[in-house]
């Protein structure tokens, strides 16, 4: 029998997304990028809780992560970016641990753009990059750190129709050192709650985001998080708040995450 969350989540994503909006969702990669010579800096803080530990029988685990990313527009259809994660891990019983994960270096090529109306658009991008080698670190997020240089390859699609938007992303990270490969599959629907109609003096908008964020690992682990959220988008910055709850969890090789709280902002320079 389906739990209520299993009924509501896909309907919510589809309901918001069937007619769509091109804002970048909180947990899903989008086919958006800064203009030529522009820089987008994004800072995201993530608080993850698990009732399990990394060793059998261990207690609960709390992890705070900071993800800093920078994307620079080289051409109207090509951008380069970098991402650095840092995390503080609190294992009970155990010591606190603060360390950084593997930096990611990414290129994004927007190979399809169809601007249909003043607001409406359809965009698709390819993403390629590398998760750079660093010390292997414990984390509730698979692939947070890797001791090899691992290729990243993916495709993302974004569409906007008036007040609604839809984003879909499929991104794989292929581990070179025998760790499991990761395939992230995400879908996000967005709805502009305010203003109902844009005007010449519109300075900002409020958006409701509903996402399904999936992660399949080649060791057989598979999880999907249901992620409702709220975004405030001004002309030069965006604030974002989201909660991630397990929607599907078939995880045997790492602690299951019970919930994640996400708080972030983006600045366009």
């Amino acid at each position, binding site marked *: 029998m389906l739990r209520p969350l299993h009924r509501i989540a896909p309907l919510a994503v589809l309901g918001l997304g069937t007619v769509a909006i091109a804002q970048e969702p909180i947990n899903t990669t989008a086919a958006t990028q800064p203009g030529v010579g522009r820089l987008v800096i994004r800072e995201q803080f993530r608080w993850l809780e698990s009732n399990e530990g990394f060793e059998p029988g261990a207690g609960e685990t709390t992890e705070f992560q900071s993800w800093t990313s920078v994307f620079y527009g080289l051409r109207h259809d090509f951008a380069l970016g970098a991402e650095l994660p840092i995390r503080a891990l609190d294992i009970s019983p155990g010591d606190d641990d603060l360390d950084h994960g593997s930096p990611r270096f990414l290129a994004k*090529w927007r190979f399809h753009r169809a601007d249909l109306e003043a607001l409406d658009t359809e965009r698709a991008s390819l993403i390629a990059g590398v998760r750079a080698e660093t010390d292997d670190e414990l984390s509730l997020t698979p692939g947070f750190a890797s001791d090899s240089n691992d290729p990243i390859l993916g495709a993302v699609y974004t569409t906007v129709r008036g007040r609604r938007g839809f984003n879909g992303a499929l991104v794989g990270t292929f581990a070179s050192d025998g760790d499991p490969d990761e395939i992230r599959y995400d879908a996000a629907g967005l709805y502009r709650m305010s203003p109902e109609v844009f005007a010449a003096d519109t300075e900002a908008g409020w958006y409701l985001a509903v996402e399904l964020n999936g992660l399949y690992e080649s060791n057989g682990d598979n999880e999907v998080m249901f992620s409702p959220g709220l975004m405030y988008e001004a002309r030069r910055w965006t604030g974002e708040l989201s909660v991630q709850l397990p929607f599907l969890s078939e995880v045997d090789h790492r602690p299951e995450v019970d919930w994640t709280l996400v708080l972030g902002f983006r600045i366009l320079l």
Partner: protein
Amino acid sequence: MRFLLPCLLATLAACASATHHDLPDALKDATPMTTKGATLTVLGLSCPNCATNIDLSLAALPNVQDVSVNLDTGLVEVEFRDADPKPSPLQLATAVRNSGFTIVAVKGR
């Protein structure tokens, strides 16, 4: 594996370079405008953040005093300073294109 990623990135860059969203002929006029301002018709302005991409690009052109973007209508009003040279239709169109949007018309006013 060592060579896979550089090859992949080079391929992406080559693909990007080979892709041209050519501007319509009417927007390729490189003659500086002589009017006090211009109205641009733009498509795909899906969010306030997107509008800022255009704002900043147009404001960087010579003798542009003010830029106003109406997201709902897709009309971008550009005010020029009372000085020369004013931007050409090609410069205005290129700035919009480089911001990641489609421009369909530039009208002096």
